[in-house]
């Protein structure tokens, strides 16, 4: 299991990188942490003819406040750094809770925030969480720069809105308003496995204690992070009673998602788990919202 040959570039700046991407287009693949790409190359399922190694670009690894309580995260920031960052823990607790669910300790020392998002794996925690939080991504190419909302970034299985010559350089995650709660629930075969089903939820209560807004996004039940719009519709403006949460979980698992069957779980079992996890996630999220 040895990777196929490729042309290799090790730029030290983003500009240099964008030039390589512009020159090679579809044949080029940026190499971030490599924790998803290199296994696929070792299996020879991925055979990029050009690799542009981002690991020598020093100024893409940072976490800083965005001024409105949210954070900017450099695309090459390693998971471990994000997981241990006090600002993230305080302002974006959902991400703080998501990090330990990513791969293994050894994967988290190499894997990067931007790499995980660009890989667009529908089973990836950060992919789901960034959509749940309404994050946005700064994307650059030689010619221009644009911000893409997380909700529009993931367009299919392992397929993002990135053009071949574009590079994801920065992630902006807003913090939750007050009276908000969050939760991430997963079921995986083994501790470190990709979740059979996972759900990330955030809720915000109004002063009367009704659900002002909510966001429920699933992983591993479709070809992209699946947003439970209908379930959220049920919650909005309502008192988050046990009955309402049950109804929302039912709606989310029966209507909002499109799970498939694979060797680890059937679609039916996935729907069942989605139901259970949504209920548990909303319970936890609303409880946290009441405390905050």
């Amino acid at each position: 299991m040895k990777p196929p040959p490729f042309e290799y570039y090790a730029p030290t700046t983003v500009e240099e990188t964008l030039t390589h991407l512009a020159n090679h287009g579809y044949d080029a693949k940026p190499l971030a942490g490599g924790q998803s790409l290199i296994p696929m190359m070792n299996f020879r399922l991925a055979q990029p003819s050009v690799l542009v190694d981002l690991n020598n670009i020093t100024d893409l690894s940072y976490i800083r406040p965005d001024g409105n309580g949210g954070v900017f995260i450099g695309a090459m920031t390693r998971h471990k750094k994000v997981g241990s960052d006090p600002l993230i823990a305080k302002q974006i607790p959902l991400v703080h809770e998501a990090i330990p669910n990513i791969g293994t300790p050894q994967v988290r020392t190499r894997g990067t925030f931007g790499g995980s998002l660009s890989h667009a794996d529908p089973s990836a925690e950060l992919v789901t969480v960034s959509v749940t939080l309404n994050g946005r991504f700064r994307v650059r190419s030689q010619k221009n720069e644009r911000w893409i909302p997380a909700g529009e970034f993931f367009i299919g299985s392992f397929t993002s809105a990135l053009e071949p010559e574009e590079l994801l350089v920065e992630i902006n995650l807003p913090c939750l308003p007050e009276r908000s709660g969050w939760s991430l629930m997963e079921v995986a075969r083994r501790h470190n496995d990709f979740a059979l089903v996972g759900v990330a939820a955030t809720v915000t209560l109004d002063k009367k204690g009704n659900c002002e807004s909510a966001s429920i996004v699933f992983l591993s039940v479709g070809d992209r992070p699946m947003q439970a719009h209908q379930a959220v519709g049920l919650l909005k403006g309502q008192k988050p009673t046990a009955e309402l949460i049950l109804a929302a979980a039912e709606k989310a698992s029966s209507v909002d998602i499109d799970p498939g069957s694979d060797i680890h779980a059937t679609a039916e079992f996935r729907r069942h788990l989605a139901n259970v996890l949504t209920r548990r996630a909303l319970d936890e999220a609303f409880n946290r919202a009441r405390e905050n």
Partner: protein
Amino acid sequence: MKLKGEYTFDASREEVWKIFRDPDVLMMALPGTKSLKQIGENDYEGELQVHIGPIAGSFGGKLTVSNEVPPESLTLTVEGNGKIGFVKGAGDVILINQGDTRTTIQYSGEIQIGGRVASVGQRLFDSVSKSMIDQGLNKLNGILQDRTAVHK
């Protein structure tokens, strides 16, 4: 692996049927099709360059159309071989009239995958095939609308 789904085109059943029988259009629709040439009345031969995120592989193979009941239904059989494995599958496509400008197609079939991609790529299949089919059908719908636009 079973494939099953539904898609509604904004065009009449006849128009949808036409493109389904037009290799040039199919070629544009099947993601990554490099070539597709008719080798018999109902047989096509082609080369497919699958490109989903980092996963890439080229398949050479045959596409056969059978059980034609114009413009209602047909069966598509594909057989492909490549470095990362092989694909074999057959699917029935039914076209359902939804008025003059809308047509729903229902497809259901079984696809077999073998070799490297089958043995280590399981987790990706379902979502990847979903993506590919959606991409393809959206493309087709786009093409259709351009055509109808031209006709008007």
